[in-house]
């Protein structure tokens, strides 16, 4: 069972790594954010699987922290993409 958990963690990690090709290729920043989102979810899944297999303590909290912050990159992307189009924002008022 341990080997199965580790193997699935590896397969998921490999799968999301293929998703990295999207980051490399683009074509746009939105695709890059999507790939980052997928890797975030896959990373959390393999984190939980690895923890279950190796018996590291307290890993649920790490997964909880990652899950809480999963949307932050996308939020920062949208938030800072918006004012660039707004000419009023440039001079601070």
């Amino acid at each position, binding site marked *: 069972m341990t*080997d199965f958990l*580790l*193997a699935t*963690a*590896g397969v998921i*990690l*490999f799968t999301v*790594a293929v998703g*990295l090709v999207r*980051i*490399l290729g*683009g074509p746009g*920043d939105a695709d*890059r*954010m999507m*790939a*980052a989102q997928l*890797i*975030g979810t896959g*990373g959390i899944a*393999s*984190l939980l699987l*690895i*923890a279950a*297999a*190796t018996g*590291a*303590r*307290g*890993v649920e*909290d*790490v997964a*909880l*922290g*990652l899950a*809480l*912050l999963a*949307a*932050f*990159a996308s*939020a*920062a*992307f*949208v*938030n*800072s*993409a*918006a*004012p*660039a189009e*707004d000419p*009023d*924002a440039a001079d*601070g*008022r």
Partner: protein
Amino acid sequence: MSVLQALDIGLAFLIVAVAAWTIFARGAFAATVGYVVYGLLLSLVWIRLFAVDVALTEAAIGSGVTGILLIGAAARLRGGETAGDEKSLSGAARLLTAGLCILVALALAGVVLLLPDQGPSLAPQSMQNLAETGLGNPVTAVLIAYRSFDTMLEKVVLVLAVVGVWSLAADRYWGGAPGEARAERPEPTLAFLAQVLAPIGILVGVHIFWVGADEPGGAFQGGAILAAMWMIVMMARLTEAPQTNAFWLRLTLVAGPVVFLTAGVAGAIFAGGFFAYPPGFAKPIILFIETFMVLSIAVTLPMLVAGPPRREPRQ
């Protein structure tokens, strides 16, 4: 080769590949997204090293808060990239640099391979004295008890960084709020996310701080998660960034180091040594210090990300 080894090797290749992408990518934004992914993979590596406290810090600060900082900066710097940048070094200089960097990496790799299996370690001592601190998590004990002076100075570094960031403000903005005033309506989705996430996140942050006495977690990790929650609320424009001349803000920023230092001086007077905690009272004192540290961290990190004041102070 066991499955675990295969997984380790795969993870190692993946993380080096992502790191190489953040260095060699053409666009700054693409590189920054790569760095956020890299932070996530790095916390996986720390889990593999059984350093769960570090993994938690890396997840909260390395990947989460740094991600907001860098992605925000990359988006604002768009258009600031200049065309001739790729040719700033000649081919020969590039090769020479690469060669020297490979040499440095190889030397370090050699050191890693030559490390003795049983190096000198303070682990036994730290475990022997753990009972006296009343804590169950040795990492927290090192941070707040055995090496408390380091941790106190680190808090001072954070305050100095805030002072440095604020000092970049134009004179007329001194004391004002950071960030642009935005005319547009807040994104409704972002507001929804912030409204749902913030209460849960505050709960998780306090939980991680509280269990940090005995389990992986602690003031830094809990404080960083609380900080992230304040950031998302500000990003969604549910609340304005505070004026940097607000008394409560400045008080909270310095509360952590001040309480820490006071406890250290009190130790010198009452317990016979700078940063000594009187026996029997160690755990309450440590938790007291940590509470103020959590507050300070939760306020310091968002202020660092928000940047210098960019609005004139309201009177």
